[in-house]
């Protein structure tokens, strides 16, 4: 957080982000989801330490074992521990969510600023591109890209990231259109500040709240897309555990083994709800218009 600015003696304004944090702390739903998100991040980062078994180790004698004390979530068709695979799956989901959103944010910010700040032809072209990319369902284009690039984790980052920029760009464009008219932007230009200086020094810090919200809201949709792609066999490569591919594997056993598909699905729901609720809370906390 930036706290370089000297606090003005007249106003008891404690800084934008501190104020937002105070607001967020008063939102119980957002705090609960924040705790869940932190929990998920810890699981993802320390997966090798937390997982009770090797997620890829096949023990054929434990094939399709029901949940028990040693294997809380049971074992899959190759006798692999489902709990351990869910834990490693968390890694895949969260990393796909985060990396793809970082890619989307970089592209989206750049495009959005160019459209909003320079206007004219740049705006026309970028706005058209935004419309092109938002006219097709994300999943469809992602499928086409995964088809072209082949399955694998890195390709998932790329295709989901490259496709998600349009939403960020549209929001940033709107924000920049408003910011452009502000006095400090104008005075910086009058002072002889270059466009790059305006974009990085004045526009970027003011776009950060918007970016925080789009990233938090973009992660759950990336998680769902990843799960869908992996479910269709276009996501991660085979032995790697992903919540989506685990559900795909469980499909042929749905008649006898209900637990098999139950747990990975619950993981997806928990992660998606947590990020969505946190995103809602952040939006309320960061939006100055909603402040009293």
């Amino acid at each position, binding site marked *: 957080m930036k706290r370089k600015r000297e606090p003005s003696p007249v106003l008891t304004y404690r800084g934008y982000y501190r104020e937002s944090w105070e607001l967020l702390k008063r939102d119980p739903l957002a705090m609960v989801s924040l705790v869940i998100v932190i929990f998920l991040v810890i699981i993802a980062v320390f997966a090798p330490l937390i997982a009770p078994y090797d997620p890829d180790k096949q023990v054929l004698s434990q094939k399709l074992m029901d949940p028990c004390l040693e294997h809380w979530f049971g074992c899959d068709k190759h006798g692999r521990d489902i709990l351990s695979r869910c834990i490693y799956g968390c890694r895949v989901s969260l990393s796909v969510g985060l990396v793809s959103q970082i890619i989307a944010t970089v592209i989206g910010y750049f495009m959005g600023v160019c459209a909003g700040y320079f206007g004219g032809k740049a705006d026309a072209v970028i706005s058209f591109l935004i419309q092109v990319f938002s006219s097709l369902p994300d999943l469809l284009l992602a499928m086409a890209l995964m088809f072209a690039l082949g399955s694998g984790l890195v390709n998932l980052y790329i295709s989901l990231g490259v496709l998600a920029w349009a939403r960020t760009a549209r929001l940033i464009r709107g924000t920049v259109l408003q910011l452009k008219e502000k006095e400090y932007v104008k005075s910086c230009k009058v002072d002889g500040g270059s466009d790059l200086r305006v974009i990085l020094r004045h526009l970027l810090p003011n776009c950060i709240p918007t970016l925080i919200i789009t990233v938090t809201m973009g992660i759950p949709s990336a998680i769902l897309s990843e799960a869908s792609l992996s479910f269709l066999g276009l996501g991660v490569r085979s032995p790697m555990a992903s919540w989506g591919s685990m559900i795909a594997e469980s499909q042929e056993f749905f008649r006898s083994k209900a637990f098999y598909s139950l747990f990975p699905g619950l993981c997806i729901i928990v992660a998606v*709800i947590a990020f969505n609720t946190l995103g809602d809370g952040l939006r309320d906390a960061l939006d100055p218009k909603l402040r009293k």
Partner: protein
Amino acid sequence: MRRYLVKRVLLALGILFSISLITFFILNIMPGDAVALMLGDTADPNTIETVRHNLGMDRPMWEQYVDWIVGVFTGDLGTSYFQRKAVSDLLLTAFGYTARLAAVSYVIALAVGLVAGIVSALNRGTILDRGLMTLTVVGISAPSFWVAIILQIFIGLRFKAIPISGLDTPISYLLPCISLGLRYAASIARITRTSMLEVMGQDFIRTARAKGLSPWRTVMVHMFRNALVPIITVIGADIGTLFAGSMLTESVFNIQGVGKLLVDNITKRDIPVVQGCVICVAIICVVVYLAVDLLYAVVDPNIRLGGEEA
């Protein structure tokens, strides 16, 4: 109004053209060669070359694209590599299934979502409202393919009368429609609730109540009609993703729709079929967005008179 109409139609055509260009190149740059896959590992390189030549795959990319896009305009989407059938015929059969599944799911979702949203808004803060809203959060977050499998396990297997695959009898629509429609019902319920609550606080509602209008009339005529604009936006955006969502539902329930056709042929690398499916979905989405925009112009005079465009 006419100027706006022409402008929007041209924009839609431009978008469609760009999508066709992007998807064509994405699908044709891929590393795996369909011909090599089709003939197997043992195929002799000369045969591969001949087949590639016969399929026109050794020509420059732009030439192939022009051929294909001209075909799209005349309704000829090429021939499937593996099934030896016209892609347009395959698509037409599949489209019937997808359209029926999507339409029935969405109509049900719309009805359920609107009722839930209105009920929630009218009972704001009660246990009913909280319960419904918690359900919508789960509904939005649950992946449809997982919901489909869970429905198969806990309903399909319990009740023998409810089939767990296909789309032949009216009762077989039940599970696919729930799994596909759940997310939409949930998002419609949420936006309806928010939108209703916004309208409820306004003066004309108080006036309507004060002049002794029946509660039912107040809700339906004054609140709901005014709450409708944001709801239309959500509906418009949903229809596109409905087709993407039906891909997953169709593969779980083994329904031979466009989505299943696409998923099956993507693994086979049957490019003409994949291209046909993608362009078909793209056309539907763009037409729906265009329709929604025009509907707005009818509802909102600001847009019609070019106020916002200027």
